[in-house]
């Protein structure tokens, strides 16, 4: 059973118990909840009256249980009314839009303008107190929340493919609304339902407490608290029981909602700890490697795991490549091949869910010492980030904090010193931003996508890094802007002496333009590595060959022409991971996983049949 479901058992069980007790109240051997017994006024708990007797000598236990019936039935009835009316209005408004939307949803929004207690009191004024009024007023009160929720959910579900498909098949709106749309928007509505029951109980008891809700002598928790207040100095227990019953029931309901929400929407609420406050990724062992031959970056045997439903799953397996000073390596692959995660692993910026299982990332810094970044403590790795290692991300619009001026964000990368802003302006000039002084004071939203990426590049090169990781830096941009950014990066290779670059991309045309070497990734593994010219003219892996064949000459095309899809991380083939899609596959391929083998100076491939391919 899923963990989120297991966590649901306890509150669901308690809730069931409360409901059962309320339902069974007439069957239990309880005293009459309204029969007065003046002789037993304020009596303490006894064998006959387990929780004591109230100010009229009535049995408190019996009144609590009967009160649960009243409170729960009012809350449930009101919630059902609100849910039915609200959902109906919301779905109709969201499905038909236009006039219907205006009437239903905007009306709901106006009702939401009233503070809830006020609205309830307004209805009580008009209808007089009583359980019936309560149901009506609470129903009116909570319907708009359902309407708004159902409206929003319908709007998003309406655009889904199968809804459009049903429309195309000629299904009537009634059928679509009931059979297709409703089940799809049900989960958030169910959560809203249980939340509303809790709110309705609180409001009902509040109104009863004021004497404007349930009419005495009917037992209701709010009324019981109201009654016990007068005598609370002599008999505090009398106050305690209904308070406990009310708060306990609401607590159980709230808990139930929280857990239900987690169970229905696994993304929400589960929130892991802030990764960078406790980086779990550092591997044990010494970071400084005196024995290693210096080079800029050498990755060996890098394996990254996530925790799947059935144990750890490797999303990146045994990845290795190296980057020499002043050279550019392109990391190529389809989305989901693990190329971005590999880049993030170098920076130590992996998301919390991804764990480094094994491997080493050797980096030689300016002082000539070689360190394993996977074993470096967070504080030391942080000192390298932004100075030795820097990274440019895929989406420049979300990489900038919208609430801070651009200049001040780029300045973060620079050491605190006078003249910091002048340096920022200089950097902006270097990356070709028009009006660099003005841009430094601008907000991120005032810039175009290409300009934002230039800003990100300016921040990345602020300290003359030795290694620049560019994670699909042009993917989110227009084609013409893409070319400009590529030109800028190619120019940096010349101006920033000795800076190595890892260029992550899915675009082979870009690789030919910018890189010296290329590492092709497939399903979390490097399948081929070598100098760009050699790999492109004589690929030694069927996947590389298929990629090249799928890329039209000089055109920037997505890698999509190979039949089949990348296998899911938890369903990897036992042998060669490319076998299901490989045109060269033989039975042997499905049994042995090929190792990455060296096939000549600076070239490697992960294919059993590379010799036949040549």
């Amino acid at each position: 059973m899923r963990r989120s479901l297991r966590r649901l058992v306890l509150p669901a069980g308690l809730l069931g118990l409360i409901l059962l007790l309320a339902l069974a109240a007439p069957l239990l051997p309880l005293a009459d909840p309204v029969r007065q017994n003046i002789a037993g006024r304020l009596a303490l708990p006894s064998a006959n009256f387990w929780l004591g007797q109230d100010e009229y000598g009535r049995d408190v236990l019996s009144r609590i249980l009967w009160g649960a019936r009243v409170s729960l039935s009012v809350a449930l009835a009101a919630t059902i009314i609100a849910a039915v009316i609200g959902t109906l209005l919301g779905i109709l408004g969201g499905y038909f839009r236009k006039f219907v939307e205006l009437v239903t949803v905007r009306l709901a929004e106006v009702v939401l303008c009233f503070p809830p207690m006020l609205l309830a009191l307004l209805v009580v004024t008009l209808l007089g107190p009583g359980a019936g009024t309560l149901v009506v007023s609470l129903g009116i009160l909570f319907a708009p929340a359902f309407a708004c929720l159902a409206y929003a959910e319908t709007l998003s579900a309406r655009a889904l493919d199968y809804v459009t498909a049903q429309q195309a098949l000629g299904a009537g709106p009634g059928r679509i609304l009931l059979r297709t749309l409703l089940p799809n928007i049900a989960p958030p509505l169910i959560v809203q339902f249980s939340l509303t029951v809790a709110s309705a109980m609180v409001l009902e008891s509040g109104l009863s407490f004021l004497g404007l809700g349930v009419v005495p002598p009917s037992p209701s928790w709010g009324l019981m608290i109201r009654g016990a207040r007068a005598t609370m100095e002599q008999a505090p227990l009398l106050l305690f029981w209904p308070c406990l019953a009310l708060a306990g029931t609401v607590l159980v309901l709230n808990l139930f909602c929280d857990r239900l929400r987690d169970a229905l929407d696994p993304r929400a609420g589960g929130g892991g700890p802030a990764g960078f406050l406790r980086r779990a990724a550092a591997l044990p062992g010494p970071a400084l490697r005196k024995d290693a031959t210096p080079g800029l970056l050498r990755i060996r045997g890098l394996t990254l795991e996530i925790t799947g439903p059935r144990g750890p799953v490797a999303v990146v397996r045994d990845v290795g490549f190296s980057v020499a000073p002043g050279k550019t390596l392109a990391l190529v692959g389809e989305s989901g091949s693990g190329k971005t995660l590999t880049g993030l692993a170098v920076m130590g910026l992996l998301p919390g869910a991804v764990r480094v299982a094994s491997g080493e990332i050797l980096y030689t810094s300016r002082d000539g010492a070689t360190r394993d970044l996977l074993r470096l403590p967070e504080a030391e790795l942080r000192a390298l980030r932004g100075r030795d290692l820097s990274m440019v991300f895929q989406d420049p619009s979300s990489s900038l904090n919208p609430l801070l001026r651009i200049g001040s964000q780029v300045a973060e990368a620079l050491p605190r010193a006078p003249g910091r802003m002048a340096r920022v302006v200089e950097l902006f000039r270097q990356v070709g931003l028009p009006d660099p002084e003005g841009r430094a004071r601008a907000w991120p939203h005032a810039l175009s996508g290409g300009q934002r990426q230039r800003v990100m590049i300016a921040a990345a090169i602020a300290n003359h890094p030795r290694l620049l990781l560019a994670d699909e830096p042009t993917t989110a941009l227009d084609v013409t802007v893409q070319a400009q950014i590529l030109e800028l990066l190619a120019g940096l290779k010349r101006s920033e002496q000795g800076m190595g670059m890892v260029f992550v991309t899915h675009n082979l045309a870009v690789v030919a333009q910018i890189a010296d070497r290329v590492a092709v990734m497939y399903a979390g593994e490097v399948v081929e590595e070598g100098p760009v010219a050699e790999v492109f003219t004589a690929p030694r892996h069927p996947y590389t060959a298929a990629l090249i064949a799928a890329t039209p000459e000089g055109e920037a095309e997505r890698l999509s022409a190979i039949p089949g899809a990348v296998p899911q991380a938890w369903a990897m083939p036992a042998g060669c991971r490319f076998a299901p899609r490989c045109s060269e596959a033989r039975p042997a391929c499905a049994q042995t996983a090929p190792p990455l083998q060296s096939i000549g100076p600076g070239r490697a491939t992960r294919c059993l049949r590379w010799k036949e391919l040549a």
Partner: protein
Amino acid sequence: MLAFAARRLAVSLALVWVVATLVFLVIHMIPGDPAELLLAQGGVAPDPALVADLRERLGLDQPLWTQYATYMGGLLQGDFGLSLQDEHAVADEIALRLPRTLELVATAGLLSVLIGLPAGVLAGLRAGQLTDRILSGIAALALSIPVFVIGTLAVLLLAQKLRLVSAGGYVPFATDPLRHIGLLLMPAGTIAFGLAAVVLRVTRGAVLEVLEREHVRAARARGLPAGAIIRRHVLRNSLTPVVTVVALHLGALLGGTVLVEFVFNWPGLSGYLVRSVEARDYPEVMGIVLVVSAIFVLLNFLVDMLYAVIDPRVRQG
């Protein structure tokens, strides 16, 4: 910015007008004659002469649109009509009691932000750890105890058992400032108990969400230390949802202080409202509902302005 403010203000005024009209319509469209309903308490059929008299006094014998025009005209001059019970001007009574309720709500809001915001940030940054579990657990508990239960228990414990404070009441600030504040803190603290839990939850969620954003990762890639990331890239970005929730709750509280004012004998607007509801005093109820709703709308307007201060993108919007 000015154009933005003007546009939002116009929308807010329109909303107030809609609410006023709605209140008017609701009162006049319910089945049965308000005058009859008013006099019919106890289930005895009222004397027709009395009803006719009351109808004339309330202007109910006029056509609906005339009544509407009179009502709107009165509103524009700050005239909410006369109380049916004692013929006092409703506006005067509101003007007397509203500041007390506002004071209560503002104090409660301030207290809950002072407690809930730092606690929520802490819980968010330590999500899943012991600190977070304890804080979130307390919040879940605080959210589940209705405000009048907390208030009543607080009176029992602090005032009656421990005799630390008096059970409730009101003393004007001018008469005795210290005692005024002492009496204010009990109801304000009671409201803040639950509200702080709300603030905590929203803040925690917002912090968690912002921590996952890409600009935080980009800031880390620039080598920023954790403290600077939290200060510059997390806290301020987490503020927007917190502002919304606090404002919405404060607005809801304007009517929701009813229970706390009742428990602590605080002579604010809500107690007045309960009395009017009990007496079915339509002009009073209409006046109070209208004023509170208008403040609610105004609050939303202020929130929008606050957004614009926090987020430069909104100003352009």
